């Protein structure tokens, strides 16, 4: 590519990136201002005095520490369950021989198509009668159920692309099926598993509507509710509202920064093979 074209492209990308990131820059900027400064005509504004109090409000009244722990716990358990279930289902669907295989595979894949919002109402009734509303399990089970179909789909695609030679020689060496799946297949499918971990993380960490439907107890709420807490008492304190939005976004951005390459690799592997 010609040098000039490349510079033009660089500039173009820089402008687009600035436009795309502008809402966040604005959010961070005004999270340090007092509410009265919101009505000034300037688009970005150096705060008269940085309002650290906004972040203290966000931490304390957003119940950041408590909700962060809840999000972390629910997401971590969901990820472990999703990976194990996707791995065993994926293996059973691609390698093992049994009668109802294709039927059950189709059924699991339906989980990708069925909108979770349509199952919200009856699930609320079912969970309530099982005593699962207002419990960690009441989030972990539906989150896992939503994540497993996609995970299984990604893994079956990946499994079909790797040769069976390793498993065959392991069988000759006397390994049983559990050794094969967890000792040989799991490391071999690591790239797909990492993608499953990251997408499951993003989906659960940011999930709102199920948590809002199934939880009413404050001590169990997850991180998105920090932001929701600020719509009442703080409804005119925009600075604190913005601070809580910044604060709750930081963990996801850090995780993304760490796993960025894996997301791309996972999507690349999955999308091309389809």
């Amino acid at each position, binding site marked *: 590519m010609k040098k000039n074209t490349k510079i033009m492209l660089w500039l*173009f990308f820089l402008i687009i990136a600035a436009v795309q990131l502008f809402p966040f820059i604005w959010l961070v900027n005004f999270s340090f201002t007092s509410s009265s400064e919101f009505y000034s005509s300037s688009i970005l504004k150096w705060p008269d005095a940085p309002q650290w109090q906004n972040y203290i409000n966000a931490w304390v009244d957003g119940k950041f520490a408590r909700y962060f722990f809840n999000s972390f716990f629910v997401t971590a358990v969901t990820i472990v369950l999703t990976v194990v279930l996707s791995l*065993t289902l994926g293996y059973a669907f691609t390698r093992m021989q049994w009668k109802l295989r294709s039927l059950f595979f189709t059924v699991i894949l339906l989980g990708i198509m069925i909108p979770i919002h*349509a199952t919200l109402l009856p699930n609320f009734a079912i969970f309530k009668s099982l005593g699962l509303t207002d419990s960690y399990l009441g989030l972990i089970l539906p989150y896992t159920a939503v994540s497993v179909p996609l995970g299984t789909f990604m893994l079956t695609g990946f499994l079909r692309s790797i040769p069976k030679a390793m498993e065959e020689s392991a069988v000759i060496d006397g390994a049983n099926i559990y050794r094969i799946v967890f000792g040989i297949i799991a490391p071999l499918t690591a790239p797909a598993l990492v993608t499953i971990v990251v997408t499951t993380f993003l989906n659960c960490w940011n999930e709102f509507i199920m948590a809002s439907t199934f939880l009413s107890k404050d001590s169990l709420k997850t991180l998105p509710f920090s932001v929701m807490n600020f719509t009442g008492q703080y409804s005119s304190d925009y600075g604190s509202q913005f601070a809580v939005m910044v604060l709750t976004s930081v963990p996801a951005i850090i995780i993304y920064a760490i796993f960025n390459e894996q997301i*791309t690799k996972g999507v690349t592997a999955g999308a091309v093979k389809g």
Partner: protein
Amino acid sequence: MHKVLNNKLAIFLFVFPGILLFALTFLAPIVLSGYYSFRDTLAPGTNSTFVGLGNYTELLFHDSRFWLSLRNAVLLGLGFIIIQHPIAIFFAIMLDRIGGKAEKWFRTIFFIPSVISVVVISKMWLSLLDPTFGVLNKLLDSVGLGALKHAWLGDSSTALVSMLVILIWAGFGWGLLFYYAGVKGIPEDLYEAASLDGASGFKLHLRITVPLLMPVITVQITLAMITALKQMEMVFLTTNGGPGDSTQFLAVYLYNKAFSASQYGYANAISILFIAVCLLFTYLSNKLTRSDATEY
């Protein structure tokens, strides 16, 4: 080998937990939803009366909101396909061409909105588009276009378009990533061959890249329509279907029918039709796009 892969106990242990979970959170609710959809009730567990197909006939023949919700989903889906996807394809190709550090850096930056919680994105855009202190109106003021100032999400003529803009902004990263993966899968020598034939620049990509991306494009278009159909959280947290149903979607409609209007039976009838629409659409698009995959 055969013996190991026929291990009945292992198959049961591998499949049963997943199927059980699926039955609990997908099948049982749908069956229960089906049951409630034939009844008239305020909430689960309260008195209910059997109304037969009453809820369904009401929905299909007398409820303009149901059709409006579907229309909005179709408009949103078309918006994704006509605006977001060409942009994403263009950026994917340009990212691949720019190469080096820039490729990685810009790819990382463009994806950032996709990792932020929908609650933050909704509340943030509510502020950005706020009629009094929102940035968009300030921006219009500062360039002398104050006459265009608007309550973007509060006016039924601009609400759906504003929603589309927010969703494109938020979902751009995923679209870009999928097309980028597709572009990366096209072997370099195809470009060399084509440029030897005299094709270059825009024409090269129109003739080589886009046709080779067709399998990715068809999958992405199906996903775009499904995303539009399933739209819920962003709408719920910004306009809640309003103003005047201009941003009404099936999922928001059924949620409000159940929890605000206490028409639980009716809401479940919407749920069942919603699932039917999603499955029907997936089936049709699979039928239509199952053309032979491109080999290269």
